[in-house]
């Protein structure tokens, strides 16, 4: 077996080790490279920036703990921005296993910004049915969520004053890790109830949402940890996402180098194979 062959069949656990180290070292010794802002993320930021005080902002945290590292920083940055702009914030989730996480995120940011539950914001919790929940909220918000996460009746809450359904909501952002997520909020929500919609999602989902972004069905897209880092940069409050970007840089470069090495070996092998083939005939 030649050196190239041996390198191509390397035990994958060695690669696992390289990746582990490339993630760990920058986390322990951060560098802090600058991050450029993309127009997709700016779309969301600018729209929230343009909303007048007391506008209604609905954030649907449609993810579970598996996507926490990507979508928690996004939700924190968005909530900080919305609270800073004194918007009325409605939080909810369509993913049952994300309920506890969503509650934690909202409570934590609200506390940090000195906001009061019921007056400045409300967390509606989770309800089953996925897309049916969106339609029902579009028809009658109080039918879909008769009580909030804490069991208080939603009717009569000061933060929900003047809101009967999704038509009265100014801006909805769905932070989606899969189905139901951003697409469902368009098809079963915005299509009929005509609120403005923005999207945030994991890196896996992001490429699939570009057609909706192009056609204006969503007015901005925050994609993965990079998107979260950009948003943290925009609101000038750096958090977990910016901190993680160095590790991202290291692992990405490591993978790129691995791919290039692999191809060099592969092409050199193919070349020798071809030469041998020629000499034999």
């Amino acid at each position, binding site marked *: 077996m030649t050196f190239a062959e041996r390198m191509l069949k390397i035990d994958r656990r060695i690669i696992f080790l390289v990746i582990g180290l490339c993630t760990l070292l920058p986390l322990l010794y951060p560098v802090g490279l600058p991050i450029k802002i993309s127009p997709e993320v700016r779309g969301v930021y600018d729209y929230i920036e343009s909303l007048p005080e007391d506008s209604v902002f609905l954030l649907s945290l449609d993810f579970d703990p598996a996507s926490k590292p990507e979508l928690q920083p996004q939700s924190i940055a968005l909530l900080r921005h919305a609270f800073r702009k004194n918007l009325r914030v409605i939080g909810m989730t369509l993913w049952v296993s994300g309920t506890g996480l969503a509650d934690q995120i909202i409570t934590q940011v609200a506390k940090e910004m000195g906001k009061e539950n019921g007056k400045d914001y409300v967390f509606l919790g989770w309800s089953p049915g996925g897309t049916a929940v969106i339609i029902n909220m579009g028809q009658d918000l109080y039918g879909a969520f*008769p009580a909030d996460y804490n069991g208080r009746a939603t009717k009569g809450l000061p933060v929900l004053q003047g809101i009967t359904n999704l038509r009265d909501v100014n801006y909805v952002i769905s932070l989606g890790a899969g189905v139901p997520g951003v697409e469902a909020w368009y098809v079963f929500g915005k299509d009929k109830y005509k609120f403005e919609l923005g999207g945030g999602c994991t*890196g896996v989902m992001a490429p699939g949402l570009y057609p909706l972004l192009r056609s204006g069905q969503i007015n901005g897209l925050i994609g993965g*940890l990079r998107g979260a880092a950009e948003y943290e940069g925009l609101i000038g409050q750096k958090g977990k996402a910016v901190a993680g970007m160095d590790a991202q840089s290291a692992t990405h470069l490591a993978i790129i180098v691995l791919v290039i090495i692999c191809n060099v070996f592969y092409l050199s092998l193919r070349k020798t194979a071809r030469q041998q083939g020629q000499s034999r005939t």
Partner: protein
Amino acid sequence: MPIETIIGAWVATGLTLFIFSFLYKDNPLFKVAENLYVGVSVGYTIVKTYDTVIVNLIWKPMVDNKEWSLLIPVAIGLLMLTRYVPKAAWLSRYAFAFIVGVGSGLAIPRTISSFILKQVEDTVRPLIMLVPGEGVSFTWNLLNPASSVNTIIILVGVSSVLFYFFFSVEHTGPGKAVARTGILFLMIAFGAAFGYTVMARMSLLIGRLTDLIEFSDASYGRPTLWLLILTIGALVVMSLRSGSNPREEK
């Protein structure tokens, strides 16, 4: 620091390391953690469903607002559960028929308007722009997705990929060229998705490692360190044992 936080840190660290041990190979530690995961998440779903559906959506509206019509969905839901009674299992079909019927009905017009009309509408654009006062012009700016050159590229991409998934004609002659263009576009999109996904997966790892770093702190009693040693020790012992086991398959 409260005692439950410290215990929590130890439990979380232990479970995290057990699952990571799968990277070495499938082993009992991983299996315990994994089955616990399934059990806990199923339990969590059941509790949340009870709290939301039975308490908030059924009981309270019926008792407080006398919404007796809610008994209809309850009946449909119960019909669904007849699946477990072999003799009455056919009754569950009524429930599925209802859900699937409503779901299909809701889907047809919404899919057409959101994903067919909207997408076609945005693809059909004039290839040249009419700038007021300057007349028609062809814009070359690649970075502006709405520029003329990008409009053409999008049109070519959409058409060729649609054609690639066309099964009624053989891909020969000019069709072959179009289908090949389609496959090249597809490969670029897959490559881009792969590249983007790398970041998604790495983020997950970063998230877990951040927790492990936090839990290596002395205030928690350094669970990361001790449990790491323990996990590796257990793996070594287990591999030694199975190594001496003659029944091991080749």
